[in-house]
């Protein structure tokens, strides 16, 4: 998100207030997870989903829009081109955002674009992230995984799994794929972290964004001069992207690849360690991994919230969403909808979790999902098999949770094991 003056899209024509058939009083977005339930969505979302799957919501800046919690409603909105993703039309659902809509998306940030601008970027990139290409990376993922597990074994017992395993694997993979030197990580990891934080000031976020841009600009200049055999090198050579666009895309892909899979590995391990029978099932049957990954994606939904804005009046579930109104989509509530997933609050690695919204839905559905799938399918079983006695090294209540981040998970995960 860039810190530029925002233009308000609402004009007299689109704003009509006070007309809605939704009966309840506007709610605010629940964000507090119940104590002792690190894997469950914030308290209150389940009740809302049951009673008012599309509810009026008051945003922290005063905007009155909507909150969607039902699976079919959330999915329908994500797949509907009458809802826009342009940041400058969106009101921020969490405290600490600007007064009024967000600043428009920086160049190269695809999540903040609509078609046809979005289509252009997506088309340039999809060929680089196909199922087949990502599967070709499996061997490399397995190699890095074994290296990290060796290092962990030598250094342990007793490590922070986030530092020792969960962060390095996706970071190494995205760096190799993009052609970003992993040795430079001091120069981008901190910035990427700040950009993903929900409770930093706009100034700090902007500074981090600029820092990441500066790093990428140097890298892009180097790739233009001598295109290397990697994603950024390919784009520098073959695409019609401007330098500014290439810098923006590179920074965005790097940030998207660093923090997401890392949190799925760490939080997924946390969940499995608190459900030893499930962990054992995965240890015993490697073929269970692909399905287990889908279920963990559903159950944990670390990318918990998305926002869209109605471009025109839309009738939905018998309610009228007016042009200009923001709709907050609770992906985590949708993925626990009993109408879609029976016994939704149970982690069951044997269930068919296909159709979960953990990677989103519609034109913005995660570009990197096949990479994430390969990483998770390899990493989680390998970790469990290497350390049959893997367990938490602190009481579960003491694991620091990422309640302050747009990607949920754990900040640290102290684990230990018995030496063989």
């Amino acid at each position: 998100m860039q810190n530029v003056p925002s233009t308000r899209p609402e004009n007299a024509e689109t704003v009509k207030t006070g007309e809605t058939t939704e009966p309840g009083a506007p709610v605010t977005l629940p964000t507090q997870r119940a104590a002792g339930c690190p894997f469950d969505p914030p308290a209150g979302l389940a009740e809302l989903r049951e009673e008012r799957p599309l509810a009026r919501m008051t945003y922290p800046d005063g905007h009155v829009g909507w909150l969607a919690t039902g699976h079919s409603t959330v999915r329908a909105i994500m797949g509907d081109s009458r809802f826009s993703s342009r940041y400058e039309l969106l009101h921020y659902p969490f405290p600490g955002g600007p007064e009024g809509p967000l600043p428009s998306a920086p160049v190269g940030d695809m999540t903040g674009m609509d078609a046809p601008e979005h289509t252009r970027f997506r088309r340039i990139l999809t060929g680089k992230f196909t199922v087949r290409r990502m599967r070709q990376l499996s061997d490399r993922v397995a190699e890095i995984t074994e290296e990290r597990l060796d290092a962990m074994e030598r250094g342990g017992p007793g490590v922070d799994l986030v530092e020792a395993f969960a962060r390095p694997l996706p970071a190494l993979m995205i760096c190799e794929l993009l052609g970003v030197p992993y040795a430079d990580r001091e120069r981008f990891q901190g910035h990427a972290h700040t950009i993903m934080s929900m409770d930093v000031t706009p100034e700090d976020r902007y500074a981090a964004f600029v820092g990441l841009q500066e790093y990428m600009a140097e890298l892009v200049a180097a790739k233009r001069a001598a295109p290397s055999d990697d994603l950024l090198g390919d784009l520098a050579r073959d695409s019609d992207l401007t330098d500014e666009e290439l810098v923006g895309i590179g920074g965005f892909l790097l940030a998207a690849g660093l923090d997401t899979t890392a949190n799925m590995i760490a939080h997924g391990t946390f969940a499995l360690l608190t459900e030893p029978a499930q962990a054992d099932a995965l240890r015993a049957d490697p073929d269970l991994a692909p399905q287990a990954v889908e279920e963990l994606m559903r159950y944990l939904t670390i990318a918990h919230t998305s926002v869209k804005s109605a471009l025109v009046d839309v009738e939905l579930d018998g309610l009228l969403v007016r042009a200009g109104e923001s709709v907050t989509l609770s992906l985590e509530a949708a993925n626990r909808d009993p109408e879609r997933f029976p016994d939704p609050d149970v982690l069951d690695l044997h269930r068919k979790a296909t159709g979960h919204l953990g990677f989103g839905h519609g034109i913005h559905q995660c570009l990197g999902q096949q990479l994430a799938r390969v990483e998770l399918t390899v990493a989680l079983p390998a970790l469990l098999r290497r350390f049959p006695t893997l367990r938490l090294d602190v009481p579960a209540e003491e694991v620091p949770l990422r309640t302050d981040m747009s990607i949920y998970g754990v900040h640290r995960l102290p684990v230990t094991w018995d030496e063989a």
Partner: protein
Amino acid sequence: MDVRVDRDRCLGAGMCALTAPRVFDQDEEEGLVVLLDARPPEERRAAVRVAAGVCPASVITLTEHGSSPAA
């Protein structure tokens, strides 16, 4: 069952190739859907229905014929 895809609206998310790999693939350059089998045999139809349902851009359309129960 007849299967059709609309490549113009495909996003290359790959859910189809993941779900029904004998029926859908993605091309190497653009990553867009490639239909391998427009009339898949009985044993693959269930997977094809799932693929059509999870495609994030809803670009897979199915025409069911009398012989098998419609999804």
